[in-house]
Structures are given as structure tokens and as C-alpha cells.
């Protein structure tokens, strides 16, 4: 049986007809057509599927799409504004935080949730916040640096 619902993704309302057991990841990728979030494990272990739900990072592979109704969903596609990269995105590139890129969408979502909650994290806090996102290519060094540099830049802009 399918249910009609509306999902607000990156500020746009998408009406969808979906079965109750469908994951948010599956619906966003196949019904809405945003393939930025990835399925790396379907088990809440790797974090490649992460999206923001009202600003909080969730593993969308293990979140029912119907539960997301009424919430603001942000995927990697919604992180930048227009053609300008979000500072996190730019710093990930400049610090070597991206190799194959499969973990990158979830990693960026996690990092952006952290900076919204804690604009000036310590390195330990960055590592704890990203510990639900696996990366097999980079050894994480460029990723951690990118988040710390971004926090510094945002603080300087705010000052």
C-alpha cells in the first residue's frame, strides 16, 4: 500500500507516493532524483547517506521516509547556495579531504551539522562529530583540517 505525502527537500516540496517501509534515502534518490546521498552500507555504519533533518544529521538509510514528513530535509545538493560553494565544500577540496568522493556528501552533512551546533569546535570535537562517517581513501587528515579551517573562517567573518 502506498501513502501520499510531501517531503520538503532543500526548500522544495516534493509530493510522493510511497510504501511505508521505504527509507528516506531510497525515496530521495529514486523518487525525487537527488543522488548526492549515497548508500554505502544500508546499516547506519558508514554515514554516506547522511542528510540534515531540521539541521540534525541522520542516517537516511535507516530513517523511514514517512517520518520525515513535516521536517526540513537538506541533502548535499542543498548545502551550497547557487554556484557558490559552501566554505566547507571549498575547504574539503583545498585540504585534500576528497579522493573518491563517495563518503564526501555524508561527511559534509555531518560537518555542517556540527558547525551549526558548535561554531568553534576543538579538533577532538570535530573527530567525535565525524566518527559516524567512514572514509577509506584519505585517512581523514584533510577532512579534519577542512572543518577546523572552516570554523575559523566563519568565526572571522562573524567577528
Amino acid at each position: 500500500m502506498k501513502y501520499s505525502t510531501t517531503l520538503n527537500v532543500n526548500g522544495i516540496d516534493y509530493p510522493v507516493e510511497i510504501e511505508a517501509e521505504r527509507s528516506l534515502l531510497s525515496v530521495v534518490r529514486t523518487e525525487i532524483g537527488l543522488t548526492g546521498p549515497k548508500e554505502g552500507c544500508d546499516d547506519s555504519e558508514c554515514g554516506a547517506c547522511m542528510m540534515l533533518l531540521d539541521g540534525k544529521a541522520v542516517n537516511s538509510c535507516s530513517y523511514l521516509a514517512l517520518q520525515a514528513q513535516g521536517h526540513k530535509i537538506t541533502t548535499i545538493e542543498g548545502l551550497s547556495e547557487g554556484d557558490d560553494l559552501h566554505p566547507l565544500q571549498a575547504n574539503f577540496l583545498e585540504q585534500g579531504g576528497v579522493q573518491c568522493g563517495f563518503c564526501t556528501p555524508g561527511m559534509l552533512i555531518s560537518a555542517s551539522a556540527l558547525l551549526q551546533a558548535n561554531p568553534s569546535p576543538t579538533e577532538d570535537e570535530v573527530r567525535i562529530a565525524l566518527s559516524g562517517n567512514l572514509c577509506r581513501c584519505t585517512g581523514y587528515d584533510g577532512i579534519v583540517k577542512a572543518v577546523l579551517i572552516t570554523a575559523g573562517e566563519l568565526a572571522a567573518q562573524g567577528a
Partner: protein
Amino acid sequence: MASSGTRTLVRGRIGELVLRPDGVPKVTGAFQFASDLSREGMAWGVTVRSPHAHARIAAIDVSEAAALHGVLAVLTHADVPGRKTYGMEHHDQPVLAWDEVRYEGEPVVIVAAVDLETARLAAARVRVHYEELPVVTWDDGIVLRHVPIRHGDQEVSAEVVVSGTYEVGMQDQAFLGPESGLAIPAEDGGIDLHVATQWLHVDQEQVAASTGLTLEQTRLHLAGVGGAFGGREDVSMQIHASLLALRSGRPVKMVYTREESFYGHVHRHPARMRYEHGATRDGRLVYVKADVLLDGGAYASSSPAVVSNAATFAVGPYRVESATIDATVTLTNNPPCGAMRGFGAVQVAFAHEAQMDRLAAALGIDPVDLRIANALTTGDRMITGQLVEGPAPVAELLERLRAMPLPPDTAMLPSDQRDLPGGLANVTHGEGVRRGVGYAIGFKNIGFSEGFDDYATARVRVSLVDGAPRVEVHTAACEVGQGLVTVLAQIARTELEIADVVVLQADTLVGSAGSTSASRQTWMTGGAVRLACEAVRARLHELSPERHVEETAEHHHRPTVPLDPVTGQGDSVVALAFAAHRAVADVDCELGLVRVVEIATSQDVGRIINPIQCEGQIQGGIAQGLGLAVMEEIQLGAGRIRNASFTDYLIPTVLDMPTVRLDILETPHPLAPYGLNGVGEPPTIASTPAVVAALRDASGIALARVPVRPEDLTTSSSSVSSS
């Protein structure tokens, strides 16, 4: 383009910090990985796999599956029109099993349906009747290849002798993007296969042979690759998706689940090794004897080449008068093993470096001093008799590594809980925590060895676009995350002094580039791009708005020869690369918990082509070495994988990964374009033994097996035999 008068160099040449051209799509989510592809009318393919490690197939009944509404094709071995087996060199693996299954997870039936759910339902309705057979594992495998090395006087004795037995567990590449691809039937009766792979042309040959298509009808296109590390060198879903697409007449997509991915690609060979080192009392290596046994699993894959590496690099980068090596790989009913970053050098490095530490202890010599005293150098001979012609800065790397400052001993201070082993689990306040430091060095070959005609092809075209020159670089070399597309563009800019360079998506419409493995692509395909650019440059005067200039070139490395089957002697390798590691670790000796505090490394990269990518390879390779040292193992019981998930197969998280202190040496390699050398694999070789050496130093326990588990650190009854 720069004019001849006031000539300024274009930016983005080799050696500069250039950002990857696929970077922006990767951070915005626009980059299309193989699993993101779709086409109008696309169907989904699913694989039915053996639940047994060894069984006879008595009957296969697909009628119930085929009758399900929405099912488009259900195929067995009988539906494979061409060659019914595949394999990179040895075609020994059934496309779909017929009489027997030889490992758990072996494909038996494939299904295509209108959607993924229907395909999975149909797969569940395939009935295969198995009769289980005895499972062959370690002790009674069939020898696939034995590589003996007899170097120097075989009747030697020494004043000081140490011996030990060592084991390495089965490691998984654990790339984040599972196997996937999309096969699209073409109007000419052929197929266009978009796939995440490491080697398009070797896939093309195998897809064509089994589908019965010609090579021209079998066109492969590289789709976005979510990491590789050796695990995509063998065919996974390539032939299956193509067969389903040809049968159903529809585009067919296949994407493995994470669990399936553990069954769907080869792993790093587990190893059992027995070593004996003899030395003079003043610390000169006299002989090394080693028996190395690798479990190849059910099919050959690249095992014959892996075991050759295990033999060739068995003693490590040391000068030794006499070596007696027997390296063997066997066929068993364990999961097939093949290529993984480090390729045979990783397993033996764990043993030879443990032995060097044991020897140093027996001699009362500092372990780094002992290594330096026996360091291989240019002009020495390897145990294969091959002269070391290129740079071999073994002593220099060790000296530089030792000179790097050590991290402060936080265990001695009232510290943050998170800095202790066990971290936030709050299991200790520092009592029982001891710090250890360990050193290791390793080396391996760059490029394919033993007579393989290793080459790469590149096509370079310059045309005028709105009056400005643009370069298009077309190769079949696979970008798998390492950043090849960046360096190929840097090479083209350097050679042609044209800023606008586009690296086209790799496909089989241009000649082979060989495999993205053996740390070879920057050297090989980079070399081919350089040659093609040189040929284009000579003709640039022909360039006009109406006429482009295009050249295709092949880069071959110098020939090598197979190892002699009796003596193991021969000039089998092209070039060598070296890296040394120092690990500092804190161990809670009561609970067996480990925190690796820092890994320092000195690595010779020949020449840095792209600093950020070069460092990225080193950092990432060390993370995988750390994983093998303390957490990563595919656990097997009677041939069955017991931990096929990221819940149970653990790879390092950002909390496990310590600070890495980098020291990059640039000794130009005389054989390579621009003096560069392979970078990707050396970080994964000595990082594992360095971490374990630090754990031994902290715990005082011999630790003869990786990954080291907490229980290994709390018992003193470890299994290393003493001489």
C-alpha cells in the same frame, strides 16, 4: 596561450598544488558514481549466490522465479553464450556455476526484473539443490603456484639465529562505493557497459568472451568509482549485467549491497609464514630462510603474481648473502583472494620486520641501527639476483625518520580521557597504560613484473575553441579516487603550455592503459600522455580553426622476465619504491586496549607531481595499514564469512586515526617520466609492522599475528616460537 615574446608559464603544471577537476561535482553531490546511473526503461539485476563454501549443484529450478510478474530474465550457466569462465589471466572462474560451487557467495543464477524489489523477490524464488562437499581450507589446499628463491650459498650457518612464525588475517579493500554498473544494449547488437572498475580493457576482453560479442561490440565506459584498492581489478557484475541486458533488451543496472560486496570481490591473501634469520655477532645479515603460505581461496585471480611478490620481497629491503625462500599460494574453498594495495609485499613485511626486531634484541643492537647496517642500496643485488639500479634510499629514510621528533608522552600527564586507550568508554585513568615505539621499512615493485607487457596508451588532441587552444586527453586509465585525472592534465599543461586541458571520461574507444594498480598509472599513462603531447607539440603549427592536431602514443616500461622456476632468479621487476614508518602507541596492558598516538613516515616518491594528492595517498595508505594492524579481518569459519558488514568488519574511523607526520623525499627515478615514482602502495606496507612493533614495545608480548586483538595484549602465551 603564452606568446613567444613575454612568455609566462601556464599554471597547473606538474609539481604545483592543483585541485582535482572532479572535485566540485564531488562536493556538491553532482558527481555520478556507477550506482547513481539510470536510463529510461532501466531494469535491475540481482545475483543468486551459493550459501555453501563447497557443494555439488544437483539441480537448479528457476521456473517459479521466471513466472513472477515483472521478471524479464532468469539466467543460469546454460544461458552463457560464450566462454563460460572468466579470470584476469587464468579463466578458471565460472560466470555462473554449473557442477560445483567452490566458495560461499559464488554466483549461480542472475535475475533481471522491472524493479529492484521484484528482482530480489524472484532471486529468493530460485531453487538450487546443493549436496554439500568437504570444505578445503588452509591445511590441504591445492598448490596453484610455488615460487622458490635460491640466492647465494645454500649451506650457510651464522653466529646468531632467530626464528619465528607469523600470521596475517584476510583483509578487505572495503571501498565505500559497492560494486555497480549499468549495461545498455546497443543498436549494433553490442553493449555499452558503464562500470566502476580499475582496468577497462581486461574487463572488455572478459565481457566479450562470455557474451560472444566482438571487442568492437563491447564498449566499456568508466563510471564514477567509489574507491578500489585492488578490489575492482577482477570482474564482479560486468558479465552478468551485460548478459541480462542482452537477454532482456533493456538497460540493466546492478548494485551490490555491502554484505554482497564482501562476497563480490577478492580480498588480501591471509598468510602463514615461518622465518629464520642468521647474522654475525656484529649484526651483519648472513641468511634468511622463509616459508610463506598464502591462501588463494577458490579461484586463481591474481594469486600467481601476488605469490611472486611475496617471494621477491620476502627479506625486506636488506642486503643478504644467502636467501632460501619458498612462497606458495594454494586453492581452497575460502573466498578468492587477489589484488589489494601492497600486493604480496604487505604480508611478508609483517614477518621480516618482526624478525629484524627479534634479531636486534638477540644481538643487543638498536633495531634502527641494525636495519641501517644491512640496508639495501643502489648497486646491490636483490635476492632474485636483480641489480638495484634505481634509487634505494633505505638508510636515508630510516635516518630521517629517526630524526623526527617524538610526540609528547601524554600518558605521563593528567590528561583528557579521550587521549587514553578505550577513549570515551572511560575504562582507565592511565594506570596500566604503557607507551611503545616501533619502526619498520618496506618496499615493492612499481608496475607489472615477470615479463608482462605493461603499457599505456594516450590520445591527445589540440583544437581551437573560440580562438583559444584546448587540449583533450583521452585514455582508458581509471580514475578511482587517487587523482589521476588531475595529474594527467598537469602533464599536458606542462608539455603543451596550454592552460585549458580536459581529461575525457575513460573508455575502451582508445587503446589500453593497463590497470590502475601496482602504483603504476601516473608513471605509465602519465608517460603516454607526455609522449602524445610531445608528438602533438611537433605539429602545433598545423593547428587552425578548421584543423585540430591529434596524436596517440604508447608508453611501455622496460621489459622484465619471469623468475626462474627453480632458482627464483631473474630481472623480474621494473622499479622499486620504499617507505619507512614509525608508530607510537599507548597500550592498556590490563585491558588490551590500544591507542595509536602518532605514525611518522619517510617515503621516497621520486618527484612530487601534485603535493596534495601525494600526501593524500600516503595518509590513506597508512590508515589501511593501521586497520590491518589492529582491527581489520574477514573472519572465516569452514569457508564462511562471519562478519560481512561494517558493523562487524571494522575499518578505522576518524577517532582511530592518529596524527601522521610526513617526510617526503624526492630522489628522481631515472627510468620514469619526470623522475617520478609510484606512491600509492608503499604507505600500506611498513605501517602495519611499525604499529605492531610499537605494541610489542609497550606490552612486551611477541604478537605474531595481525590484526592484534585485545586478548593478544593481555596474555603472555603468544605463539611466536623462540630459537
